[in-house]
């Protein structure tokens, strides 16, 4: 494992909502290593999208308060940079793609215009060079008729194509880190597979680390190397993807896995819902936020917030925040060995 290109320590975000202050992200800490795809997984409202916005410095000060000990990227602490410096970093060292590409692209500008703007701003190329680089990028993301696409406008392209344009724009400057916020949620299943493959390939060849935010466990299993499971603003489990799926240690992760339907050839495996409802961010209970829905919870869980504990398994680190984690089956062997 190469060393960390992005290192986050104690990131917190509080929002002012109607009922009161809501701690939507609570002292998040994690590292992203070069060339890997890290999944940030959770259900709606868990704080994953706000985390992405906070990392990019895109949370409007009126809406929320962002605090972090450090967000280290390329030797700089993003948490302490001012807006001007952040703007220089965004797009060139760290970039982001969003869920709905139609609204992320300005309808009155052509695709070529979008791409060239990004390239010229951060790579300082002139118009002709930028045009050539744009065509190159489009071909890199698998667009067959790149020259025609350059002249097209966003509404003329399909959802999958627009998303690939977004990837081209985000990767044009060979950033260290790419944050992809639910990039395939709005796409058809067949297109989704294409886009994810493109993303992963490009990340590998450019050496870009990818933070993939999603709620879809299938996407995590197929595309990510490691994953972070978020619940109510906290990371509850962190592990290499194989260990996570085969032997989750946090009850919430296990609950999620039991709720995902899988196509099986040997009889139907009935999905099981997690009982109860996630608490409202403005009314979070003390102790472990998952206690009310957890079959293993006891009094301690409702008073004491579980801290992250690290366990080394098969040469990789597996972390969880639980007082009563699920036991690790001794028969488990990693295919990586």
């Amino acid at each position, binding site marked *: 494992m190469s060393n960390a290109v992005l290192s986050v320590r104690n990131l917190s975000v509080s929002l002012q909502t109607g009922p009161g202050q809501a701690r939507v992200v609570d002292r998040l800490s994690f590292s992203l290593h070069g060339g890997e795809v890290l999944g940030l997984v959770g259900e709606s409202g868990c704080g994953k999208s706000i985390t992405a916005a906070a990392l990019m410095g895109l949370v409007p000060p009126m809406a929320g308060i962002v605090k972090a000990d450090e967000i280290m990227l390329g030797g700089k602490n993003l948490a302490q940079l001012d807006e001007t410096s952040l703007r220089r970093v965004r797009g060139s060292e760290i970039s982001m793609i969003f869920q709905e590409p139609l609204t992320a692209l300005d309808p009155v500008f052509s695709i070529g215009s979008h791409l060239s703007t990004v390239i010229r701003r951060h790579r300082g190329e002139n118009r002709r060079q930028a045009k050539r680089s744009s065509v190159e990028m489009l071909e890199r993301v698998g667009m067959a008729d790149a020259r025609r696409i350059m002249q097209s406008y966003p509404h003329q392209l399909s*959802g999958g194509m627009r998303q690939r344009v977004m990837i081209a724009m985000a990767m044009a400057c060979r950033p260290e880190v790419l944050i992809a916020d639910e990039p395939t949620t709005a796409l058809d299943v067949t297109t989704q*597979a294409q886009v994810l493959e493109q993303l992963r390939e490009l990340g590998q060849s450019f050496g870009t680390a990818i933070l993939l935010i999603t709620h*879809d466990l299938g996407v995590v299993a197929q595309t990510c190397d490691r994953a972070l499971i978020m619940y109510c603003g906290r990371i509850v489990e962190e592990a290499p993807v194989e260990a996570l799926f085969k032997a989750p240690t946090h009850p919430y992760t296990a609950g999620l896995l039991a709720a995902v339907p899988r*196509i099986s050839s040997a009889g139907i495996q009935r999905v099981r*819902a997690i009982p109860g409802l996630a608490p409202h961010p403005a009314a979070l209970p003390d102790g472990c936020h998952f206690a009310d829905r957890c079959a293993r919870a006891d009094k301690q869980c409702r008073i004491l917030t579980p801290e992250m504990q690290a366990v080394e398994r098969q040469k990789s680190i597996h972390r969880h925040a639980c007082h009563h984690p699920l036991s690790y089956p001794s028969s488990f062997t990693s295919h990586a060995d």
Partner: protein
Amino acid sequence: MRTDSPLLSVRDLVVKYRAGSERGDILTAVSGVSFDIDAGSIFGLVGESGSGKTSLAHSIMQLLPPAAGEILFHGEDLAHMNAASRQKTRRNIQLVFQDPLASLSPRRSILQSLIEPLDHFRIDANRQRHARVCRVLETVGLERDLLQRFPHELSGGQRQRVALARALVTEPELIIADEAVSSLDVSVQARIIELVLELRQQRGIAFLFIAHDLAVIQQLADRVGVMYLGKMIEIAPANRLFHHAAHPYTRSLLEAVPVPDPAHGKPVVLQGEPPSALNPPAGCAFHTRCPRAVEQCRVVEPPEEQINETGEKRTTHNVRCHLWQE
């Protein structure tokens, strides 16, 4: 619950609508679809965007008039019903939409939204309507104090359960769920799936479950139909479809679903772009992306053929493909 005639029967349905302002912009959303739904059974309709599945649902709900073909409910053609029968049918077929926030009127309380169908169809005496609403809330697992709230105050899962409650309140025989779980979190989706199965089991309600997620369909459906660009390209009993899918599109769909298991192979990527419904390809609509297309596929539209040996209509496995035998 099994009678010989199906509850809902769709025969050669064609639905068109005006896609733009030009005279020629007629889009054929559904071109010749036929299938049956038996009372108390769950029919899964699979398709991606542009397949025509939503237009099909809207047509059954009488929101869009058919350009050709018939929709029979209890053997009676919807298009030829008198006003009284039509109202009765409206009570008996209900629709649940994908986006629960959009499907509930934003400025009306949950109670108002749930009572509206009862008032309109004059079900029960006035006093008993409130009691019925409470009963139906309990069925979907919601608390009574939700009645005074407004849609934007509830979570996505709660809203979808309210939408389901609203569909249930008239005690319909058939519920059409159009991507009803697609925008929900995994654990909430699981709860709704459990709920649908309970409703079928305990009340014999039939479902037309429309989704693009085959894994969800497998949890629920007795019979499955796959649509591509307005045509039903494969239709079969559920276990046959998932084990012996015959159409290349169905196979690609099955292979494209990302499996929540890293040890499983990577999904097989389907190349090419989905075709436009305004300008459908000649011959078989799927030939532009089909890994096995031959000359015949580009020119001749494949007819519907039955590929299993059974006399019973409800267990036939039909496919529209020139190459199914190989």
